[in-house]
């Protein structure tokens, strides 16, 4: 039919081309909307004019001063100190969380014990409570333990970020579930204890999910400011990066610090963005692994 009617074929492909152009235009527009705020913040971080309210969209002149101020001004908002605090907290809580998450996921995926189902149901129910409903109480428990004063605040934050991570086992359990059971059984027949199966078989086979877990738990302290604010209260020398950035936008600081906020945002976004782009594969794998039919 088509060979007999070349004219019709032309109109079909013409329509197709029009659709294609439209689609690409639409995508370009959407991509612009998505990328613009990010571009804008990067531009703002290099903006020479201070203050938050300006009457031009693009900066008039560019400077690196915002970054310099961010890392040298230790008087008002001590960003380098906050950066250090957050780094320490992130490293510690990352180690603990990773251990917790992997331990719990492995146990739930591989071991069969009486409390397995109850535990999973409990995790689901606890997940339905608003996350920080327990926050105030956590604060008082930490206070009773004496962790809410001075440098103990860091310990308190580490605990807050890592203590309950045993509930977030779903993605890594999903991953462990995809490792064939018979490999474990082979190892058991070969004379391995469960511990040896865990450390010498399952762990080496689970690099993607280990990386994923390490990264998510490492990132958490950088981007949380709810818990950090409640725990730190007014202890400025214990602030984390997120509180610092939040404060930069408060009334008393915003005029002086707005462009520094932009710089700070860029500074912590870049490593996180790199980590994220690196691990999005695992994220997708974890997700589609968890829901594949």
């Amino acid at each position, binding site marked *: 039919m088509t060979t007999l009617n070349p004219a019709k074929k032309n109109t079909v492909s013409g329509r*197709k081309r029009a659709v294609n152009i439209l689609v*690409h235009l639409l*995508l370009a527009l*959407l991509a612009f909307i*998505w990328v613009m*705020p990010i571009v804008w*913040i990067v531009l703002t971080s290099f903006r020479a004019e201070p203050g*938050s309210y*300006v009457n*031009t*969209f693009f900066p008039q002149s560019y400077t690196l001063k915002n970054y310099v101020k961010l890392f040298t001004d230790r008087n008002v908002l001590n960003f380098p100190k906050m950066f250090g605090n957050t780094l320490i907290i992130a490293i510690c809580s990352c180690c603990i969380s990773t*251990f*917790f998450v992997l*331990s719990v996921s492995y*146990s739930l995926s591989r*071991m069969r*014990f*009486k409390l397995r*189902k109850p*535990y999973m149901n409990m995790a*689901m*129910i606890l*997940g*339905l*409570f*608003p996350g*920080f*409903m*327990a926050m*105030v*109480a*956590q604060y*008082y*428990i930490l206070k*009773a333990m004496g962790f809410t004063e001075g440098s103990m605040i860091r310990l308190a934050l580490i*605990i*807050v970020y890592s*203590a*309950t991570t*045993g509930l977030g086992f779903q993605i890594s359990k999903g991953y462990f579930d995809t490792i064939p059971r018979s490999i474990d059984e082979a190892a058991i027949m070969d004379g391995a*204890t*469960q*511990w040896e199966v865990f450390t010498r078989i399952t762990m080496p086979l689970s690099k993607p999910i280990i990386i994923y877990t390490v990264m998510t738990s490492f990132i958490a302290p950088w*981007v949380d400011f*709810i818990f950090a604010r409640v725990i730190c209260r007014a202890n400025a020398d214990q602030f984390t990066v*997120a509180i610092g950035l*939040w404060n930069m*936008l408060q009334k008393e600081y915003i005029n002086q610090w*707005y462009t520094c906020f932009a710089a700070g*945002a860029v500074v912590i976004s870049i490593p*996180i*963005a*790199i980590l994220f*782009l690196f691990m999005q594969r695992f994220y*997708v794998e974890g*997700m*589609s692994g968890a*829901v*594949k*039919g």
Partner: protein
Amino acid sequence: MAANKTGSKNSVLTAVKNGDLWTRLSMILMGAGLFGHGQKIKGAIVFVFEAAFIFYMLATGFHALAMLPGLGSVEAGEVYNEAKGIYEYSAGDNSLLLLLYGVVTLFVIAAFIVLWVLQMKQSYKCQKNLEEGKHVNSFKEDVQSLFNNNLHITLMTLPVLGILIFNIVPLVFMICMAFTTYSKEDNHLMLFDWNGLTQFGRVLNMGGNIGRQFWGVLAWTVIWAIFATFLNYILGMILALIINRKDTKGKGFWRFCFVLSIAVPQFVSLMIMNTMLQPYGAVNVLLQNLGWISKPIPFWQDATLARITIIVINLWVGIPYTLLQITGILQNIPAELYEAARMDGAGPVTIFFKITLPYMLFVTTPYLITSFVGNINNFNVIYLLSQGGPTYVGDTAGQTDLLVTWLYKLTIDFQYYNIGAVIGILTFIVLTVVTLVTYRNSGSYKNEEAFM
């Protein structure tokens, strides 16, 4: 499970009934049964726990329990400490701490009872094994089994303790608050009392001020969650389909553009959005410079506009997530399905509604539920964008407040702890109902192994 439970009950009873001297002795002297039946070290450890428990109960436990019903009565002086920004209290009863200690003590007692039951069962089992000439594990073997067949105990003890101390105890503690007068209202921050379901009555009573706000916030929360979840889902899926079209060029590039916005920490991008949409923020400036508008658009000042803005910005935040998650699944749809449909003469729209959408819905129901729950609890988006505002005078809840952000304000800003706790419990109930109804009906729940 039911069988197990009755089994365990029986074995404690039988342990008491048929136990020998050692086993019965361990009813009072915990660990005696284990000690007497050859597990000396384990028995000693159990006994140390009992001693510690008794010491704790004598030192603070009994006092804490005794104070729990009354929550203290001695008035105290209250001084505001400017430097620390918190209230400091001179001596007197602190109902909050009394409540906390009471709750903790209840948990300690519960743990002790569990330990008691376990050691009873174990010592009876040891006794039986000895009688039947079976092997009784030595301490070394017990430790070895912690790395073999009982590995889950080793691995999960610490995580479970963490959850218990920093999630369950605090939750119970907060839930208790809902039944007290603990609030800044009438100055009950120091000393408060149990007052039953009064606060629930206040919150649920549509006539009262709090009740009116509650139903308003609840309605907006549900509307928000539905919009946020399904708009993100559908639009994200359409975007994924457009990018995955055979004829779309530069798939990787487009995906990168959208995924980039996830890579920026959410609180950063939301705060940026917040400032950009201020009356003199970048967007208004841009539009005014272009001459499209004469005065700034009140993105955050008008209730309806603020709600729409939040939903739209949430699209900006959420669509890339959907895109990321759905791309993988889309590629998993068997190509034969599409080919068969095309052979049957189905157009792109039909294919979307008859094949893609049903398939996706089937596969992603758990994801939809999670994201619905996540949206009801979506603190970040609301608090960072509008902080719940605009707020009418005399209200504690703003027009865009969700239950969670209201809860946060009530506890942290206003210190109406009891009402906050009530809101938390009600949020939980809403979520439980939604989740259970959808979850139970979804195919994916019915077979856990299908996830594998």
